[in-house]
């Protein structure tokens, strides 16, 4: 049985079709990179799978269970978590408290109303995450004051507090300087690999896709253009024209130098 399966997933916003009949099957332990130009439907896909947006038609199956009607909270509880393109964290709290709260919520079916959050084993777990994600020097700092790269890591670490079976990363390296990208991905992928979680990540950088993905799904205009091993997909004629061409243009533009994808 597939870990996650979408069947004919379609999402329309008025006359715009953001996702058009997306059927994809994901097996446990895969590390899937999702590529596509802006507006190709990548984030819409992630939003639908995590319950943030309801599909106009089609269904989503997780370990044989239809999760289409569920909202983010139920889906999180079932073991699908996500990070965001713009990190969704708690800026007025310290990084450590962000993690403690995430762990505290993950601990029980419902957040405890009386039992203290600050207990030794949660502290230890938070310390472990801090070390794992290379955040030790930021623990006590207010998240509002932290650099974007650190917030991105925190966002992912918080999503992982639930020990999900499947994690969806929405552009884990966007908004991060080129020099930091690989460092961040090494930390993230290292931490995720240890837990055996299945990963689905949206990425614009083909080098990152090639290095970390075990499979690539290319989106274009709401449909799946290609799906397969990174080498094959990235060599695909149509993908090169519709997806990578865009990406090349984007990256050379952004870096102000020669493209290297």
């Amino acid at each position, binding site marked *: 049985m597939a870990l996650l399966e979408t069947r004919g997933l379609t999402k329309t916003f008025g006359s715009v079709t953001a996702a058009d009949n997306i059927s994809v099957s994901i097996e446990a332990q895969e590390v899937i990179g999702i590529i596509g130009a802006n507006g190709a439907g990548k984030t819409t896909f992630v939003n639908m799978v995590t319950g943030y947006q309801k599909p106009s038609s089609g269904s989503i199956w997780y370990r044989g269970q239809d999760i289409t009607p569920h909202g*983010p*909270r139920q889906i999180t509880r079932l073991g699908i978590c996500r990070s965001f393109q713009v990190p*969704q*964290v708690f800026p007025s709290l310290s990084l450590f408290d962000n993690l403690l709260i995430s762990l505290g919520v993950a601990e029980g079916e419902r*957040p405890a109303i009386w*039992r*203290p959050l600050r207990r030794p084993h949660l502290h230890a777990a938070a310390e472990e995450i801090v070390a794992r994600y290379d955040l030790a020097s930021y623990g006590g700092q207010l998240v509002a004051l932290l650099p974007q790269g650190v917030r991105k890591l925190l966002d992912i670490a918080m999503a992982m507090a639930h020990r999900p079976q499947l994690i969806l990363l929405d552009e884990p390296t966007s908004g991060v300087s080129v020099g930091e990208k690989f460092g961040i991905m090494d930390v993230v992928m290292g931490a995720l690999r240890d837990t055996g979680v299945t990963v689905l990540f949206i990425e614009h950088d083909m080098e990152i896709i090639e290095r970390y993905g075990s499979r690539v799904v290319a989106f274009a205009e709401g449909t799946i253009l290609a799906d397969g091993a990174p080498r094959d997909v990235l060599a695909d004629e149509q993908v090169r024209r519709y997806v990578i061409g865009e990406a090349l243009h984007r990256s050379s533009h952004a870096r102000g130098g020669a493209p290297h994808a």
Partner: protein
Amino acid sequence: MMGTDKTLTVLGATLLALVAAGFLLPDWAVFLLTLSLARGLVVLGLLILWRSGLVSFGQALFFGTGAYTVGLLVLFAGLRDIVALTVLAALAAGLLAWLVGLLLTGYRDIFFAMLSMAFSMILYGILVKTELLGSTDGFNVPHPTFLGYAPAGEKMRVSIYLWTALVSMAAAYGVHRHLSSTMGQLGAAIRDNEIRVEYLGASVRRVLLIQVIIAGALAGAGGAVTAFAVGHIDPDAMAYWTVSGEFVFVTILSGTGHILAPFLGSLLFELIRSFAFQYSPYTWQMVLGTSLLLIILFLPNGLWSLYARLRKGG
């Protein structure tokens, strides 16, 4: 968990000091302290909501419900025991908070504040129009008994005061425990980012609803002891929107930095009001307004931040 123990010690010491004050201070001061503690109970509830980013401008709804629950049970059911009546008043207000909260928790910011005020004015309207409940005149509340003990003469005032002090410190401990819990700590998280809270697997609505219920029950208990302390209840003193406004006023005055801040702020509020009323009966509201203005200007995080600042400086 060190913190919990320390807070418990501080609250215990405060309770002892309050008990001593009850026997040492003159009658008027004991009365003033009773009202301050009762008001502090309501503000304690507002502190919880404040931390979660909500300001209720209708807490008089629950304060009034508590007071009138006591009044009605005394008048029509013949109950006199202050312990049972305080609990029942808190339950009644909590139940009402649950019902109202189902709707309220769908709103935030100014909409939450205004809707809560609207609900409280419905209660006010009902009370004013109902002859059976004494209409605008309200009615007198007879002296309570204390688990069978019926204090005579001057002992009554001190007894009500001691009960109020006990309830206040117990409530403060309960709220402290709640704020230290996972759900309590989620308050600040909800204020910051509701989307992440939902994606952590917690229900924002449920957390806020429970906190509205806790705040409502605390206000109900505050209303109950106030009814006994004053010996009279009427809509203008218990359920009018200005009463809610005073609670918010005291919350700002107190600051949300510590569990005892609401009681300290309430005490200062009662002191300013009493003395302003005594020395300038025609402009006492101006004195009150000026003091709030000064507090906001110089201590934007409330009275308690003064203590925090002093400790840091020392």
